[in-house]
């Protein structure tokens, strides 16, 4: 199964890259932006045909390596 996960910075963690992207968008004329937050996206093809089990495996990966839970949250967004 292919499992997709996104990792985002927690709300109270400063995201300087997001800030610069926001400023650049503003300079380009995109004036309707409140905030930009940058994150990470993973597509993991696991050798598991049961969607629930596949999700569990990727959640375990997120907890142990892909995300640092002090500053980041993760979310499984798609299993196919």
């Amino acid at each position, binding site marked *: 199964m292919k499992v997709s996960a996104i990792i985002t910075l927690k709300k109270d963690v400063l995201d300087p*890259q997001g800030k*610069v992207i926001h400023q650049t968008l503003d300079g380009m004329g995109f004036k309707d932006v409140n905030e930009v937050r940058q994150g990470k996206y993973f597509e993991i093809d696991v050798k598991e045909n049961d969607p629930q089990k596949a999700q569990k495996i990727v959640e375990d990966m997120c907890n142990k*390596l892909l995300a*640092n839970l*002090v*500053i980041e949250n993760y979310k499984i967004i798609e299993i196919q």
Partner: protein
Amino acid sequence: MKSAVITFPGSNCDRDMHVALNKFGFKNQMVWHNDIELPKSDLVVLPGGFSYGDYLRCGSMASKSKIMQSVINFAKSGGLVMGICNGFQILVESGLVPGVLLRNKYLEFICKNVFVKIDNKNNPYFKNLDKEVFEFHIAHNEGNYFCTNDQLKEIEDNNQVAIYYCNDNGKTEEKFNPNGSLKNIAGIFNKEKNVLGMMPHPERMIDQSLSGEDGSLFFKNLINNIK
């Protein structure tokens, strides 16, 4: 006194640290990240560099390498483990010291000398030092120390802040903070004070002709404390 410096793929301060440790009396051994057992050591050092190309998060891959389980066991049994720069990032990623190191606030790689203030000498690293303010070198892109409010309270209650960024007089104001670190924090201990992580490089300050001698004071004192 025996020390061990771990070399990860992408470490680049491992040899500098080897030279510094040997210069001040340690008998240092280089250890490859893929090894399983640490040699018998009084001090283990995780050096600076860009382990695994800083992929995912700085230090995250190295913190899972084979030798780290042995380093974690050594630290948990009270052994001295010091992480400098990328070594500090590996320490936070392995959970040996609290917090994380984020991208520098102004998104620039910082390479310069800074002053740091030692706050607490009640530990094997700084005990008996006869001054508080040291000039060390920093070179990093992700040195912006951050932790949760709960962690910060615990860190402060347990006197776990090792060093703060400051000016040459030891003033720890925001304007002397190079990278946006919470409370000017440049280095942190674990609760027991046997594990030290810090962004500055004392091993780059061991020769007057290179840049200074404050690192010499640190290493000379360290080996005397361990003896």
